[in-house]
Protein backbone atom coordinates (compact mmCIF):
# COMPACT_ATOMS: atom_id res chain seq x y z
CA UNK A 1 0.00 0.00 0.00
CA UNK A 2 1.10 3.54 -0.72
CA UNK A 3 -0.01 6.19 1.70
CA UNK A 4 1.02 9.69 2.62
CA UNK A 5 0.00 13.16 3.66
CA UNK A 6 0.11 15.62 0.78
CA UNK A 7 -0.81 19.26 1.47
CA UNK A 8 -2.66 17.89 4.48
CA UNK A 9 -4.68 15.42 2.39
CA UNK A 10 -4.41 11.69 3.06
CA UNK A 11 -3.70 9.85 -0.21
CA UNK A 12 -3.97 6.06 -0.35
CA UNK A 13 -3.32 3.45 -3.04
CA UNK A 14 -4.33 -0.04 -1.93
CA UNK A 15 -2.23 -3.11 -2.80
CA UNK A 16 -5.01 -4.62 -4.92
CA UNK A 17 -5.00 -1.46 -7.06
CA UNK A 18 -1.94 -2.80 -8.91
CA UNK A 19 -2.11 -0.44 -11.87
CA UNK A 20 -2.17 2.76 -9.81
CA UNK A 21 0.35 1.31 -7.36
CA UNK A 22 2.94 0.73 -10.08
CA UNK A 23 2.24 4.09 -11.75
CA UNK A 24 2.91 6.13 -8.61
CA UNK A 25 5.88 3.95 -7.58
CA UNK A 26 7.57 4.66 -10.92
CA UNK A 27 6.82 8.37 -10.43
CA UNK A 28 8.70 8.17 -7.11
CA UNK A 29 11.75 7.03 -9.08
CA UNK A 30 11.42 10.05 -11.39
CA UNK A 31 10.31 7.67 -14.13
CA UNK A 32 7.04 8.46 -15.92
CA UNK A 33 5.74 5.12 -17.15
CA UNK A 34 2.50 4.27 -18.90
CA UNK A 35 0.96 0.93 -19.78
CA UNK A 36 1.55 -0.20 -23.35
CA UNK A 37 -0.99 -2.73 -24.60
CA UNK A 38 0.69 -5.89 -25.94
CA UNK A 39 -1.77 -6.24 -28.81
CA UNK A 40 -2.30 -2.59 -29.75
CA UNK A 41 1.14 -1.24 -28.94
CA UNK A 42 -0.69 1.85 -27.70
CA UNK A 43 0.00 3.77 -24.50
CA UNK A 44 -2.81 4.82 -22.20
CA UNK A 45 -3.40 7.30 -19.40
CA UNK A 46 -4.48 7.19 -16.61
CA UNK A 47 -3.78 3.57 -15.60
CA UNK A 48 -6.53 1.16 -16.66
CA UNK A 49 -7.10 -2.57 -16.31
CA UNK A 50 -7.44 -3.27 -20.03
CA UNK A 51 -6.55 -1.66 -23.35
CA UNK A 52 -9.32 0.78 -24.41
CA UNK A 53 -8.69 -0.07 -28.08
CA UNK A 54 -8.36 -3.89 -27.96
CA UNK A 55 -9.66 -4.87 -24.46
CA UNK A 56 -6.34 -6.66 -24.05
CA UNK A 57 -5.43 -7.15 -20.38
CA UNK A 58 -1.73 -7.73 -21.10
CA UNK A 59 0.64 -4.77 -21.05
CA UNK A 60 4.16 -3.55 -20.33
CA UNK A 61 5.15 -0.47 -18.33
CA UNK A 62 7.08 1.78 -20.74
CA UNK A 63 9.02 4.96 -19.90
CA UNK A 64 7.53 8.00 -21.64
CA UNK A 65 9.10 11.40 -22.12
CA UNK A 66 7.35 13.94 -19.89
CA UNK A 67 7.06 16.71 -22.43
CA UNK A 68 4.04 18.24 -24.03
CA UNK A 69 1.76 21.17 -24.78
CA UNK A 70 -1.05 22.60 -22.68
CA UNK A 71 -4.32 21.48 -24.30
CA UNK A 72 -6.59 23.24 -21.80
CA UNK A 73 -6.67 24.07 -18.14
CA UNK A 74 -8.62 25.17 -15.09
CA UNK A 75 -7.46 28.19 -13.09
CA UNK A 76 -8.93 28.08 -9.61
CA UNK A 77 -9.44 31.31 -7.68
CA UNK A 78 -11.87 29.98 -5.09
CA UNK A 79 -10.61 26.71 -3.59
CA UNK A 80 -13.06 23.96 -2.64
CA UNK A 81 -10.68 21.68 -0.77
CA UNK A 82 -9.17 23.12 2.42
CA UNK A 83 -5.74 21.89 1.26
CA UNK A 84 -5.72 24.32 -1.66
CA UNK A 85 -6.97 27.48 0.07
CA UNK A 86 -3.49 28.80 0.71
CA UNK A 87 -2.41 28.07 -2.88
CA UNK A 88 -4.97 30.10 -4.88
CA UNK A 89 -4.82 30.98 -7.64
CA UNK A 90 -3.59 27.62 -8.91
CA UNK A 91 -3.68 25.95 -12.30
CA UNK A 92 -4.71 22.43 -13.25
CA UNK A 93 -3.13 21.70 -16.62
CA UNK A 94 -4.36 19.18 -19.15
CA UNK A 95 -1.27 18.45 -21.22
CA UNK A 96 -1.04 16.67 -24.57
CA UNK A 97 2.09 14.53 -24.43
CA UNK A 98 4.22 14.72 -27.58
CA UNK A 99 4.27 10.94 -27.50
CA UNK A 100 1.30 9.41 -29.32
CA UNK A 101 -0.40 12.77 -29.97
CA UNK A 102 -3.17 12.42 -32.55
CA UNK A 103 -3.12 8.63 -32.29
CA UNK A 104 -4.86 6.29 -32.80
CA UNK A 105 -7.28 8.94 -34.12
CA UNK A 106 -6.96 12.64 -34.82
CA UNK A 107 -8.54 13.93 -31.61
CA UNK A 108 -6.93 11.49 -29.21
CA UNK A 109 -3.88 12.20 -27.10
CA UNK A 110 -2.36 11.18 -23.80
CA UNK A 111 -3.75 14.14 -21.81
CA UNK A 112 -1.94 14.15 -18.51
CA UNK A 113 -3.14 16.16 -15.53
CA UNK A 114 -0.94 18.13 -13.14
CA UNK A 115 -0.65 21.44 -11.37
CA UNK A 116 1.57 24.20 -12.70
CA UNK A 117 4.57 24.31 -10.37
CA UNK A 118 7.83 26.18 -10.36
CA UNK A 119 10.93 24.24 -11.44
CA UNK A 120 11.71 23.61 -7.76
CA UNK A 121 8.26 22.18 -7.09
CA UNK A 122 6.32 25.03 -5.48
CA UNK A 123 2.89 26.17 -6.63
CA UNK A 124 3.39 28.70 -9.44
CA UNK A 125 3.08 32.33 -8.30
CA UNK A 126 0.44 34.55 -10.00
CA UNK A 127 3.02 36.21 -12.27
CA UNK A 128 4.03 32.81 -13.65
CA UNK A 129 0.42 31.69 -14.05
CA UNK A 130 -0.21 34.75 -16.23
CA UNK A 131 2.36 33.49 -18.76
CA UNK A 132 0.81 30.04 -19.20
CA UNK A 133 -2.13 29.05 -21.38
CA UNK A 134 -3.21 26.78 -24.22
CA UNK A 135 -0.12 26.13 -26.32
CA UNK A 136 2.49 26.55 -23.57
CA UNK A 137 5.28 23.97 -23.71
CA UNK A 138 5.75 22.19 -20.39
CA UNK A 139 7.90 19.46 -18.89
CA UNK A 140 7.08 17.02 -16.14
CA UNK A 141 8.41 17.19 -12.61
CA UNK A 142 7.56 14.98 -9.65
CA UNK A 143 6.48 15.84 -6.15
CA UNK A 144 7.01 13.33 -3.39
CA UNK A 145 4.06 12.31 -1.21
CA UNK A 146 5.86 9.74 0.92
CA UNK A 147 8.56 7.10 0.55
CA UNK A 148 7.98 5.40 -2.83
CA UNK A 149 4.97 7.59 -3.72
CA UNK A 150 5.13 10.70 -5.95
CA UNK A 151 2.75 12.68 -8.14
CA UNK A 152 3.54 13.93 -11.65
CA UNK A 153 3.21 17.70 -12.15
CA UNK A 154 4.11 20.28 -14.79
CA UNK A 155 6.45 23.22 -15.06
CA UNK A 156 7.30 25.54 -17.95
CA UNK A 157 9.85 23.95 -20.30
CA UNK A 158 12.62 26.57 -20.17
CA UNK A 159 14.50 25.07 -23.10
CA UNK A 160 11.52 24.80 -25.49
CA UNK A 161 10.41 27.37 -28.04
CA UNK A 162 7.27 28.95 -26.56
CA UNK A 163 4.33 30.45 -28.46
CA UNK A 164 4.40 34.28 -28.54
CA UNK A 165 1.06 34.45 -26.76
CA UNK A 166 -0.37 31.23 -25.33
CA UNK A 167 -4.18 31.45 -25.23
CA UNK A 168 -5.49 32.53 -21.87
CA UNK A 169 -8.92 33.39 -20.56
CA UNK A 170 -9.08 37.13 -21.37
CA UNK A 171 -9.94 38.43 -17.88
CA UNK A 172 -6.95 38.52 -15.49
Amino acid at each position, binding site marked *: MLQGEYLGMRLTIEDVDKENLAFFQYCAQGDFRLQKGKKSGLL*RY*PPTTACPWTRDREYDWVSVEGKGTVHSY*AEVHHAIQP*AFREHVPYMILLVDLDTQKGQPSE*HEALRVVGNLLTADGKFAPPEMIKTVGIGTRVRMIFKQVSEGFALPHWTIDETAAQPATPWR*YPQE
Partner: protein
Amino acid sequence: MTQSDVDATTPKYLRNKYAIVGVGETTYRRGSQESTRNLATWAINNALDDAGLEAADIDGMLSYSGNDSTMSPFVAGDLGIRLNFYMDVHGGGSSTEALIGIAMGVIEAGMCKTVAIFRSMNGYTQVRIGGTGARSAAPITGDQVHMRAYGWQSAGQMFAPTFLRHMYDYGTTSEQVAHVKMAHSKHASNNPKAFYKTRYTIEDVLNSRIICKPLHLLDCCVETDNATCIIVTRAERAKDMKQPLVQIRSVVGRCCKPRIDMHYQHGPISTVAGYYAKDILWPNAGVGPEEIDLTGSYDAFTFTTMLQLEEYGFCKKGEGGQYVSSGIIELGGARPNNTSGGHLCEGYTHGMNMVIENVRQLRGNVDDSCPVGADGKRQHTYNYSEGGCRQVKDAELSANLGWAMPGTGSAMVMQRG
Protein backbone atom coordinates in the same frame (compact mmCIF):
# COMPACT_ATOMS: atom_id res chain seq x y z
CA MET B 1 -29.92 14.04 -39.33
CA THR B 2 -27.75 10.96 -38.86
CA GLN B 3 -29.36 7.71 -37.85
CA SER B 4 -27.30 6.08 -35.14
CA ASP B 5 -26.47 2.42 -34.84
CA VAL B 6 -28.88 2.17 -31.93
CA ASP B 7 -31.69 -0.28 -32.64
CA ALA B 8 -34.37 2.38 -32.68
CA THR B 9 -37.28 0.19 -31.67
CA THR B 10 -38.68 3.03 -29.57
CA PRO B 11 -40.56 4.69 -32.44
CA LYS B 12 -42.25 1.43 -33.24
CA TYR B 13 -43.22 0.46 -29.73
CA LEU B 14 -42.85 3.19 -27.15
CA ARG B 15 -43.09 6.62 -28.80
CA ASN B 16 -45.95 8.41 -27.01
CA LYS B 17 -46.84 5.17 -25.21
CA TYR B 18 -45.70 6.55 -21.84
CA ALA B 19 -46.63 9.68 -19.97
CA ILE B 20 -45.70 11.82 -17.00
CA VAL B 21 -48.90 12.04 -14.98
CA GLY B 22 -47.78 13.72 -11.78
CA VAL B 23 -45.08 16.13 -10.69
CA GLY B 24 -44.33 17.62 -7.32
CA GLU B 25 -41.69 19.22 -5.19
CA THR B 26 -40.97 20.66 -1.77
CA THR B 27 -40.03 24.29 -1.31
CA TYR B 28 -36.59 25.30 -2.62
CA ARG B 29 -34.74 26.46 0.48
CA ARG B 30 -31.45 26.81 2.25
CA GLY B 31 -31.94 25.28 5.67
CA SER B 32 -34.77 22.80 5.16
CA GLN B 33 -34.60 21.62 8.80
CA GLU B 34 -35.93 18.30 7.46
CA SER B 35 -34.38 14.90 6.78
CA THR B 36 -34.08 13.81 3.15
CA ARG B 37 -36.58 11.06 4.06
CA ASN B 38 -39.11 13.66 5.15
CA LEU B 39 -38.43 15.86 2.10
CA ALA B 40 -38.95 12.83 -0.17
CA THR B 41 -42.37 11.93 1.27
CA TRP B 42 -43.39 15.60 1.02
CA ALA B 43 -42.49 15.79 -2.68
CA ILE B 44 -44.07 12.41 -3.52
CA ASN B 45 -47.27 13.43 -1.72
CA ASN B 46 -47.42 16.58 -3.82
CA ALA B 47 -46.88 14.58 -7.02
CA LEU B 48 -49.62 12.10 -6.01
CA ASP B 49 -52.03 14.98 -5.35
CA ASP B 50 -51.04 16.54 -8.66
CA ALA B 51 -51.78 13.26 -10.45
CA GLY B 52 -54.94 12.53 -8.47
CA LEU B 53 -53.47 9.21 -7.38
CA GLU B 54 -53.33 7.42 -4.04
CA ALA B 55 -50.48 5.45 -2.50
CA ALA B 56 -52.06 2.19 -3.67
CA ASP B 57 -51.77 3.36 -7.29
CA ILE B 58 -47.94 3.43 -7.08
CA ASP B 59 -46.12 0.10 -7.26
CA GLY B 60 -42.71 1.13 -8.55
CA MET B 61 -40.10 3.51 -7.20
CA LEU B 62 -36.79 4.85 -8.48
CA SER B 63 -34.39 7.33 -6.94
CA TYR B 64 -30.88 8.58 -7.47
CA SER B 65 -28.33 10.04 -5.14
CA GLY B 66 -24.67 10.22 -4.24
CA ASN B 67 -24.51 9.00 -0.66
CA ASP B 68 -26.56 12.03 0.29
CA SER B 69 -30.14 10.83 0.48
CA THR B 70 -32.71 8.34 1.67
CA MET B 71 -33.68 5.12 -0.12
CA SER B 72 -36.96 3.95 -1.64
CA PRO B 73 -37.84 1.32 1.01
CA PHE B 74 -38.01 3.92 3.79
CA VAL B 75 -40.02 6.37 1.73
CA ALA B 76 -42.39 3.73 0.36
CA GLY B 77 -42.92 2.36 3.85
CA ASP B 78 -43.68 5.82 5.23
CA LEU B 79 -46.29 6.44 2.54
CA GLY B 80 -47.87 2.99 2.71
CA ILE B 81 -46.78 2.09 -0.81
CA ARG B 82 -46.31 -1.66 -1.49
CA LEU B 83 -43.67 -1.97 -4.16
CA ASN B 84 -43.51 -4.44 -7.04
CA PHE B 85 -40.26 -2.83 -8.14
CA TYR B 86 -37.73 -0.36 -6.81
CA MET B 87 -34.17 0.68 -7.46
CA ASP B 88 -32.00 3.38 -5.90
CA VAL B 89 -29.15 4.25 -8.22
CA HIS B 90 -25.95 6.20 -7.84
CA GLY B 91 -25.76 9.40 -9.81
CA GLY B 92 -26.50 13.07 -10.11
CA GLY B 93 -27.18 15.19 -13.17
CA SER B 94 -28.47 13.34 -16.25
CA SER B 95 -30.21 10.74 -14.05
CA THR B 96 -33.69 12.25 -14.42
CA GLU B 97 -34.24 11.33 -18.06
CA ALA B 98 -32.33 8.05 -17.63
CA LEU B 99 -34.61 6.96 -14.78
CA ILE B 100 -37.71 7.94 -16.75
CA GLY B 101 -36.45 5.60 -19.48
CA ILE B 102 -35.87 2.84 -16.94
CA ALA B 103 -39.39 3.35 -15.57
CA MET B 104 -40.80 2.92 -19.08
CA GLY B 105 -38.76 -0.24 -19.52
CA VAL B 106 -39.80 -1.93 -16.29
CA ILE B 107 -43.47 -1.09 -16.86
CA GLU B 108 -43.16 -2.40 -20.43
CA ALA B 109 -41.62 -5.58 -19.03
CA GLY B 110 -44.66 -6.08 -16.86
CA MET B 111 -42.71 -5.64 -13.64
CA CYS B 112 -44.98 -2.88 -12.30
CA LYS B 113 -47.56 -0.35 -13.46
CA THR B 114 -46.78 3.13 -12.18
CA VAL B 115 -43.40 4.44 -11.02
CA ALA B 116 -42.63 7.36 -8.73
CA ILE B 117 -39.13 8.77 -9.34
CA PHE B 118 -37.68 10.98 -6.64
CA ARG B 119 -34.52 12.93 -5.84
CA SER B 120 -34.21 14.22 -2.28
CA MET B 121 -31.25 16.27 -1.12
CA ASN B 122 -30.09 18.81 1.40
CA GLY B 123 -27.67 20.18 -1.17
CA TYR B 124 -26.88 23.21 0.93
CA THR B 125 -27.14 22.22 4.58
CA GLN B 126 -25.93 18.60 4.45
CA VAL B 127 -23.86 17.26 1.53
CA ARG B 128 -23.05 20.42 -0.41
CA ILE B 129 -23.29 20.09 -4.15
CA GLY B 130 -20.44 22.52 -4.72
CA GLY B 131 -18.14 20.01 -3.07
CA THR B 132 -17.23 21.95 0.06
CA GLY B 133 -17.58 20.40 3.51
CA ALA B 134 -17.73 16.62 3.88
CA ARG B 135 -16.91 15.88 0.23
CA SER B 136 -13.77 17.99 0.10
CA ALA B 137 -12.47 16.64 3.40
CA ALA B 138 -12.92 12.94 2.53
CA PRO B 139 -9.75 10.80 2.21
CA ILE B 140 -8.48 10.37 -1.37
CA THR B 141 -7.93 6.86 -2.67
CA GLY B 142 -7.15 5.01 -5.89
CA ASP B 143 -8.35 6.56 -9.14
CA GLN B 144 -9.35 9.76 -7.34
CA VAL B 145 -5.70 10.58 -6.74
CA HIS B 146 -5.36 11.51 -10.43
CA MET B 147 -7.91 14.29 -9.88
CA ARG B 148 -8.52 15.36 -6.30
CA ALA B 149 -4.84 15.46 -5.33
CA TYR B 150 -4.51 18.25 -7.91
CA GLY B 151 -7.35 20.31 -6.49
CA TRP B 152 -9.51 19.08 -9.36
CA GLN B 153 -12.72 18.07 -7.63
CA SER B 154 -15.74 20.36 -7.91
CA ALA B 155 -17.94 20.33 -10.99
CA GLY B 156 -16.69 23.75 -12.05
CA GLN B 157 -13.06 22.65 -11.73
CA MET B 158 -13.69 19.40 -13.60
CA PHE B 159 -15.58 21.03 -16.50
CA ALA B 160 -13.41 24.15 -16.89
CA PRO B 161 -11.03 22.60 -19.50
CA THR B 162 -14.06 21.94 -21.75
CA PHE B 163 -15.43 25.46 -21.31
CA LEU B 164 -12.06 27.15 -21.94
CA ARG B 165 -11.30 24.96 -24.93
CA HIS B 166 -14.69 25.89 -26.43
CA MET B 167 -13.72 29.55 -26.08
CA TYR B 168 -10.38 28.76 -27.73
CA ASP B 169 -11.83 26.63 -30.55
CA TYR B 170 -14.84 28.81 -31.40
CA GLY B 171 -14.30 32.26 -29.92
CA THR B 172 -17.14 31.89 -27.42
CA THR B 173 -17.16 34.68 -24.82
CA SER B 174 -18.20 35.02 -21.18
CA GLU B 175 -20.44 37.90 -22.24
CA GLN B 176 -22.35 35.55 -24.56
CA VAL B 177 -22.96 32.84 -21.98
CA ALA B 178 -23.87 35.42 -19.32
CA HIS B 179 -27.10 35.76 -21.31
CA VAL B 180 -28.04 32.33 -19.95
CA LYS B 181 -28.02 33.66 -16.39
CA MET B 182 -29.81 36.82 -17.49
CA ALA B 183 -32.55 34.79 -19.21
CA HIS B 184 -32.99 32.25 -16.43
CA SER B 185 -33.12 34.98 -13.78
CA LYS B 186 -35.80 36.73 -15.82
CA HIS B 187 -37.79 33.49 -15.85
CA ALA B 188 -37.25 32.95 -12.13
CA SER B 189 -38.60 36.40 -11.33
CA ASN B 190 -41.98 35.09 -12.54
CA ASN B 191 -41.72 31.86 -10.54
CA PRO B 192 -43.08 32.09 -6.99
CA LYS B 193 -41.13 28.91 -6.06
CA ALA B 194 -37.71 30.14 -7.20
CA PHE B 195 -34.99 30.49 -4.57
CA TYR B 196 -33.45 33.47 -6.41
CA LYS B 197 -36.07 35.76 -7.94
CA THR B 198 -33.75 38.69 -8.66
CA ARG B 199 -33.18 39.64 -12.29
CA TYR B 200 -29.51 39.89 -13.23
CA THR B 201 -27.79 41.77 -16.05
CA ILE B 202 -24.84 40.70 -18.19
CA GLU B 203 -22.68 43.17 -16.24
CA ASP B 204 -23.77 41.61 -12.93
CA VAL B 205 -22.46 38.24 -14.14
CA LEU B 206 -19.20 39.59 -15.57
CA ASN B 207 -18.54 41.69 -12.48
CA SER B 208 -19.10 38.85 -10.03
CA ARG B 209 -15.90 37.30 -8.69
CA ILE B 210 -14.03 34.56 -10.54
CA ILE B 211 -14.49 31.13 -8.97
CA CYS B 212 -12.57 29.01 -11.48
CA LYS B 213 -11.86 30.47 -14.90
CA PRO B 214 -13.97 30.91 -16.96
CA LEU B 215 -16.67 30.75 -14.28
CA HIS B 216 -17.78 33.79 -12.35
CA LEU B 217 -19.91 33.30 -9.25
CA LEU B 218 -23.06 34.06 -11.23
CA ASP B 219 -22.14 31.53 -13.94
CA CYS B 220 -22.64 28.84 -11.28
CA CYS B 221 -25.88 27.26 -10.10
CA VAL B 222 -27.40 27.64 -6.67
CA GLU B 223 -27.15 25.07 -3.84
CA THR B 224 -30.49 24.36 -2.18
CA ASP B 225 -32.34 21.82 0.01
CA ASN B 226 -35.28 20.16 -1.70
CA ALA B 227 -36.96 17.02 -3.00
CA THR B 228 -38.72 16.48 -6.32
CA CYS B 229 -40.90 13.73 -7.76
CA ILE B 230 -42.08 12.63 -11.22
CA ILE B 231 -44.69 9.89 -11.77
CA VAL B 232 -44.55 7.77 -14.95
CA THR B 233 -47.13 5.35 -16.30
CA ARG B 234 -48.56 4.13 -19.61
CA ALA B 235 -50.22 6.85 -21.70
CA GLU B 236 -53.27 4.64 -22.07
CA ARG B 237 -53.78 4.69 -18.31
CA ALA B 238 -52.93 8.38 -18.15
CA LYS B 239 -55.81 9.39 -20.40
CA ASP B 240 -58.30 8.93 -17.56
CA MET B 241 -56.22 10.82 -15.05
CA LYS B 242 -56.54 14.26 -13.56
CA GLN B 243 -54.05 16.26 -15.61
CA PRO B 244 -53.78 17.02 -19.34
CA LEU B 245 -51.77 14.29 -21.04
CA VAL B 246 -48.00 14.81 -21.42
CA GLN B 247 -46.44 12.02 -23.47
CA ILE B 248 -42.82 10.91 -23.84
CA ARG B 249 -41.73 10.76 -27.46
CA SER B 250 -38.11 9.79 -26.93
CA VAL B 251 -35.59 9.36 -24.16
CA VAL B 252 -31.80 8.95 -23.94
CA GLY B 253 -30.12 7.91 -20.71
CA ARG B 254 -26.53 8.62 -19.69
CA CYS B 255 -25.16 8.54 -23.20
CA CYS B 256 -21.36 8.84 -23.08
CA LYS B 257 -18.33 10.01 -25.01
CA PRO B 258 -15.53 7.45 -25.50
CA ARG B 259 -13.05 6.88 -22.66
CA ILE B 260 -15.58 7.81 -20.02
CA ASP B 261 -13.06 6.72 -17.35
CA MET B 262 -11.39 10.07 -18.19
CA HIS B 263 -13.17 11.57 -21.17
CA TYR B 264 -10.53 14.19 -21.89
CA GLN B 265 -8.41 11.45 -23.49
CA HIS B 266 -10.74 11.47 -26.49
CA GLY B 267 -11.37 14.86 -28.04
CA PRO B 268 -12.41 17.23 -29.28
CA ILE B 269 -12.82 18.20 -25.65
CA SER B 270 -15.08 21.09 -26.65
CA THR B 271 -17.55 18.44 -27.84
CA VAL B 272 -19.94 17.00 -25.26
CA ALA B 273 -22.03 13.82 -24.98
CA GLY B 274 -24.96 15.34 -26.87
CA TYR B 275 -22.88 14.78 -30.00
CA TYR B 276 -23.74 11.09 -29.61
CA ALA B 277 -27.08 11.42 -27.81
CA LYS B 278 -28.68 13.52 -30.54
CA ASP B 279 -28.54 10.57 -32.93
CA ILE B 280 -30.73 8.58 -30.55
CA LEU B 281 -32.97 11.40 -29.38
CA TRP B 282 -34.18 12.88 -32.67
CA PRO B 283 -34.72 9.72 -34.77
CA ASN B 284 -36.60 8.07 -31.91
CA ALA B 285 -38.68 11.21 -31.35
CA GLY B 286 -39.43 11.56 -35.05
CA VAL B 287 -38.95 15.31 -34.75
CA GLY B 288 -35.91 17.56 -34.93
CA PRO B 289 -34.71 20.55 -32.93
CA GLU B 290 -36.43 22.98 -35.29
CA GLU B 291 -39.82 21.66 -34.15
CA ILE B 292 -39.19 22.09 -30.43
CA ASP B 293 -41.09 24.90 -28.65
CA LEU B 294 -39.09 25.07 -25.44
CA THR B 295 -35.96 23.49 -23.99
CA GLY B 296 -34.64 22.45 -20.62
CA SER B 297 -30.88 22.49 -21.16
CA TYR B 298 -29.20 21.69 -17.85
CA ASP B 299 -27.71 24.78 -16.27
CA ALA B 300 -25.21 23.57 -13.72
CA PHE B 301 -23.32 26.48 -15.27
CA THR B 302 -24.18 29.02 -17.96
CA PHE B 303 -21.75 27.14 -20.21
CA THR B 304 -23.49 23.76 -19.89
CA THR B 305 -26.75 25.17 -21.25
CA MET B 306 -24.90 26.65 -24.22
CA LEU B 307 -22.82 23.54 -24.97
CA GLN B 308 -25.80 21.22 -25.04
CA LEU B 309 -28.10 23.43 -27.11
CA GLU B 310 -25.30 23.58 -29.66
CA GLU B 311 -24.50 19.87 -29.57
CA TYR B 312 -28.11 18.76 -29.99
CA GLY B 313 -28.36 20.87 -33.13
CA PHE B 314 -30.36 23.92 -32.05
CA CYS B 315 -27.62 25.85 -33.81
CA LYS B 316 -24.46 24.94 -35.71
CA LYS B 317 -21.49 23.53 -33.82
CA GLY B 318 -19.47 26.42 -32.47
CA GLU B 319 -22.34 28.89 -32.60
CA GLY B 320 -23.74 28.18 -29.13
CA GLY B 321 -22.51 31.54 -27.87
CA GLN B 322 -24.43 33.39 -30.55
CA TYR B 323 -27.51 31.22 -30.00
CA VAL B 324 -27.81 31.83 -26.26
CA SER B 325 -27.14 35.57 -26.63
CA SER B 326 -29.67 36.06 -29.44
CA GLY B 327 -32.79 36.32 -27.26
CA ILE B 328 -34.11 32.97 -28.52
CA ILE B 329 -33.76 31.31 -25.09
CA GLU B 330 -35.72 34.00 -23.22
CA LEU B 331 -39.45 33.94 -22.51
CA GLY B 332 -40.92 35.79 -25.47
CA GLY B 333 -38.12 34.39 -27.66
CA ALA B 334 -38.59 31.65 -30.23
CA ARG B 335 -37.51 28.78 -27.95
CA PRO B 336 -37.21 29.65 -24.26
CA ASN B 337 -34.89 27.57 -22.06
CA ASN B 338 -35.49 26.69 -18.40
CA THR B 339 -38.55 28.82 -17.91
CA SER B 340 -38.59 28.07 -14.16
CA GLY B 341 -35.17 29.65 -13.71
CA GLY B 342 -33.56 26.21 -13.60
CA HIS B 343 -30.55 25.38 -11.49
CA LEU B 344 -29.13 28.86 -11.80
CA CYS B 345 -32.12 30.40 -10.01
CA GLU B 346 -35.03 28.15 -9.04
CA GLY B 347 -33.17 25.48 -7.10
CA TYR B 348 -30.69 22.65 -7.57
CA THR B 349 -32.26 19.22 -8.07
CA HIS B 350 -29.86 17.34 -10.37
CA GLY B 351 -32.22 17.85 -13.29
CA MET B 352 -35.68 17.05 -11.91
CA ASN B 353 -37.07 20.59 -11.81
CA MET B 354 -36.33 21.17 -15.51
CA VAL B 355 -38.47 18.18 -16.47
CA ILE B 356 -41.17 19.17 -13.97
CA GLU B 357 -41.28 22.66 -15.48
CA ASN B 358 -41.65 21.39 -19.02
CA VAL B 359 -44.47 19.03 -17.96
CA ARG B 360 -46.34 22.01 -16.52
CA GLN B 361 -45.60 24.08 -19.63
CA LEU B 362 -47.00 21.38 -21.91
CA ARG B 363 -50.11 21.18 -19.72
CA GLY B 364 -50.46 24.93 -20.35
CA ASN B 365 -50.80 25.50 -16.63
CA VAL B 366 -47.48 26.67 -15.33
CA ASP B 367 -47.51 28.33 -11.90
CA ASP B 368 -46.79 32.04 -12.15
CA SER B 369 -48.42 35.25 -10.94
CA CYS B 370 -51.26 35.25 -13.46
CA PRO B 371 -54.80 35.18 -12.00
CA VAL B 372 -56.58 31.85 -11.53
CA GLY B 373 -59.98 31.61 -13.21
CA ALA B 374 -63.20 30.05 -11.92
CA ASP B 375 -62.24 26.77 -13.61
CA GLY B 376 -59.12 26.61 -11.45
CA LYS B 377 -56.87 27.32 -14.44
CA ARG B 378 -54.54 30.26 -14.72
CA GLN B 379 -55.53 32.99 -17.12
CA HIS B 380 -52.12 33.42 -18.71
CA THR B 381 -51.37 36.93 -19.98
CA TYR B 382 -48.16 36.09 -21.89
CA ASN B 383 -46.81 39.33 -20.50
CA TYR B 384 -43.33 38.31 -19.38
CA SER B 385 -42.43 41.47 -17.49
CA GLU B 386 -41.20 41.06 -13.92
CA GLY B 387 -43.71 39.40 -11.62
CA GLY B 388 -45.89 38.41 -14.57
CA CYS B 389 -46.44 35.37 -16.76
CA ARG B 390 -44.07 32.57 -17.65
CA GLN B 391 -46.31 30.29 -19.68
CA VAL B 392 -45.03 29.62 -23.22
CA LYS B 393 -47.89 30.13 -25.67
CA ASP B 394 -49.16 26.95 -27.38
CA ALA B 395 -46.27 24.83 -26.10
CA GLU B 396 -46.56 21.45 -27.79
CA LEU B 397 -43.08 19.91 -27.88
CA SER B 398 -40.27 20.23 -25.36
CA ALA B 399 -36.71 18.89 -25.18
CA ASN B 400 -34.85 18.28 -21.94
CA LEU B 401 -31.07 18.03 -22.21
CA GLY B 402 -29.64 16.54 -19.03
CA TRP B 403 -25.98 16.90 -18.10
CA ALA B 404 -23.77 14.86 -15.80
CA MET B 405 -20.45 16.14 -17.14
CA PRO B 406 -18.95 16.89 -20.56
CA GLY B 407 -18.72 13.16 -21.26
CA THR B 408 -22.19 12.06 -20.14
CA GLY B 409 -25.68 13.34 -20.89
CA SER B 410 -29.34 12.34 -21.10
CA ALA B 411 -32.23 13.78 -23.03
CA MET B 412 -35.98 13.55 -23.52
CA VAL B 413 -38.61 14.88 -25.89
CA MET B 414 -42.12 15.34 -24.50
CA GLN B 415 -45.33 16.19 -26.27
CA ARG B 416 -48.67 17.63 -25.20
CA GLY B 417 -51.28 14.90 -25.64
